[in-house]
């Protein structure tokens, strides 16, 4: 297997982008990444998209995006793994370069979620749960994550205030991100006094419905300097794992086993340990998800994620800065794009180009993206070259 490097990265604005369609968003991100890298062609492309069908009535995303990017006849493939679609697209792109099959690969992620109303969006997202056991019985994602939060609070004495501190920290980071959907700062009190969506989760514990796209250009690491003037970022590890879709089938409601499994593999592949990671983007679709992810990634012991978040350990300047972009919570969560967008943030951090949210001297970063309540997980470790 060849070493792989990222030489181009671009994320669009996140938000309610009324005047831009699914294809507009993808093309903006893809052209941005191509321009950033300075490459004159691509050999193949992989597009993360969770539910073009339910959000905008469009499937067959791979060929459509190749067409609108003006890249036909390159091979193009859509990758779907619910909210981990973007991370899995990155892994697909990585595999194609690492295996020697392609030299210049475009990885993109895109979702256009605001063409439907709230109920339809909630339904589309709920299809990432086990429909026969969960979705058809009326369970939605806020409900599922609320159950995980209740279990975590029961066993580890995690508090609502600790959950809220995750949101406050991510909005603080998002306030420094020009592409964030909700760049306003919120206090712990704001979160706790916001509307209860699914006890114990308040609306400010939840990530929003977002339009957005992100893209990366991947090449063999030894060709990075030749192909691009931009600093290359090496992909030290790309791993994935799965768990049961249905929450009730899990051995432990308080742990993200697939994330832990993927992380263990990633540390082994990269020959690194959790304490080596200097900046990390995790899948904070709900505040409890960030707490559980930071435990599964080994940054904190099981049950210590809540107190760690409250202590400031995950803030910029803390022990392990988490979600410097603002995370899905503040930056926004265009589901199929989120995994790619996380990698764009880490690329910017490792290039030292993250502006006001820069983690000083960051050379090693990580991304953790997951689908559903953690049934699919994908982890990448990136390093400045």
């Amino acid at each position, binding site marked *: 297997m060849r070493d792989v490097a990222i030489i181009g990265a671009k994320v669009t604005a996140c938000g*309610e982008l*009324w*005047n831009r369609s699914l294809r507009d968003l993808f093309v903006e991100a893809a052209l941005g990444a191509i321009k950033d890298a300075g490459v004159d062609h691509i050999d193949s492309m992989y597009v993360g998209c969770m539910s073009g069908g339910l959000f905008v009535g469009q499937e067959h995303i791979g060929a459509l995006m190749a067409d609108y990017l003006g890249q036909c006849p390159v091979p193009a493939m859509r990758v779907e793994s619910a909210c981990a679609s973007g991370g899995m697209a990155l892994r697909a792109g990585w595999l194609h370069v690492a295996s020697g099959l392609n030299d210049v690969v475009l990885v993109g992620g895109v979702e256009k979620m*605001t063409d439907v*109303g*709230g109920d339809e969006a909630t339904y589309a997202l709920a299809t990432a749960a086990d429909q026969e056991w969960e979705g058809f019985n009326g369970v939605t994602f806020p409900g599922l994550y609320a159950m995980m939060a209740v279990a975590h609070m029961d066993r580890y004495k995690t508090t609502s205030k600790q959950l809220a501190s995750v949101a406050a920290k991510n909005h603080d980071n998002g306030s420094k991100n020009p592409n964030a959907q909700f760049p306003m700062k919120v206090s712990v009190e704001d979160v706790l006094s*916001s*509307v*209860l969506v699914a006890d114990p989760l308040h609306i400010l514990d939840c990530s929003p419905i977002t339009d957005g796209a992100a893209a990366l250009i991947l090449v063999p690491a030894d060709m990075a300097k030749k192909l691009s003037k931009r600093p290359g970022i090496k992909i030290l590890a790309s791993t994935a794992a799965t768990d049961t879709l249905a929450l009730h089938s899990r051995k432990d409601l308080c742990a993200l086993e697939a994330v832990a499994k993927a992380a263990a593999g990633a540390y082994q592949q990269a020959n690194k340990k959790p304490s080596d990671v200097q900046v990390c983007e995790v899948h904070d679709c709900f505040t409890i998800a960030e707490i559980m992810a930071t435990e599964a990634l080994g940054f904190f012991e099981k049950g210590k994620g809540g107190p760690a978040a409250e202590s400031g350990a995950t803030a910029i300047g803390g022990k392990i800065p988490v979600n410097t972009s603002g995370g899905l919570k503040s930056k926004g969560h265009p589901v199929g794009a989120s995994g790619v967008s996380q990698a764009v943030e880490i690329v910017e951090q490792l290039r030292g180009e993250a502006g006001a949210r820069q983690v000083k001297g960051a050379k090693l970063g990580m991304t953790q993206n997951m689908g559903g309540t953690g049934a699919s997980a994908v982890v990448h470790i990136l390093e400045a070259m």
Partner: protein
Amino acid sequence: MKVGIVGWGASLPRHRIKVEEIAKVWGADAPSYKKGLGLREKSVPAPDQDVITLSVEAARNALARASQVSAAELGCIYIGSESHPYAVKPSGCTVGEAIGAFPACHVADMEFACKAGSEGMFVAHGLVKAGLVKYGLAIGADTSQGAPGDALEYSAAAGAAAYIMGSEGVVATIDDTFSFTTDTPDFWRREYQHYPQHAGRFTGEPAYFRTVTGASTALLEKAGMKPKDFAYAVFHQPNGKFPMRVGKMLGFTKEQMEIGWLAPRLGNTYSGASPLGLTAILDVAKPGDKIFMCSYGSGAGSDAFVYTVTDKITALQQKGVPTTADQLDKNQIYLQYGEYAKFRRKILKAE
């Protein structure tokens, strides 16, 4: 020839229901609805009040102020509403007959979601200006529909505003107008449906805000005026928040908008909304005051107007005709949800 408003009148139901009372029934969070919608309560039509009766009362108030106008001199009657009692048979026929305007009169009911009222004002003004009619009556009235439990239920209210347009005895001249229209599907009700559907947050930025700022900016530019030139401004008010936000985006101040900003304590009277804001302003305006008005109707469009108040207004303000503020802030009767459900025919007595 200066054409403009020669008489104005409002009609509001006495009944109200508070946000808390509706939220209680649906298990919803009242403080977040109050904050999100920027309103506390809304008006509710009594069982015997509909667009026709509200329009008749508003028209009579307008005629009482413009006492030099005989109803028989009204050359046209336009009633804008999205809750006309009949699908086929104009509300204007009953209203015109009731006030004694017939038979020499052109009548039409208007429909353009919430801007149907200002449409009548636009057309009546045009006919007077063209010399086709001596006086024209334009009414915006609604007993709006909001599906039980829907966000609209907290705001859909009732009320009517009537304007007599003419060229003699003008109390506020219409100096300039601008209409802005696009095909923007943010809110609609199809035939045989009881309640409208709406496209959630799409009704905001790409619909209301784009259209209202589009019409207002164009009219200010056309008239060569700036927000600071106006004593008052009134915008369509689907809730308490939107009109204040759009006004501030355009450069108007809270002080300019406060008098016509009725939604927090009235709700959204749909076709009556910005016209009722204007009746409240005319109740207190001084000669020389400039007034800016911009309606909004889903679908979508806005009619914007620039008015200048004349010295004839003072006498009409002193005629003892019920003002908008009087009807809004006095003698309210607060309903519980059960009574409200009966009033709005959401529950029916067994035969």
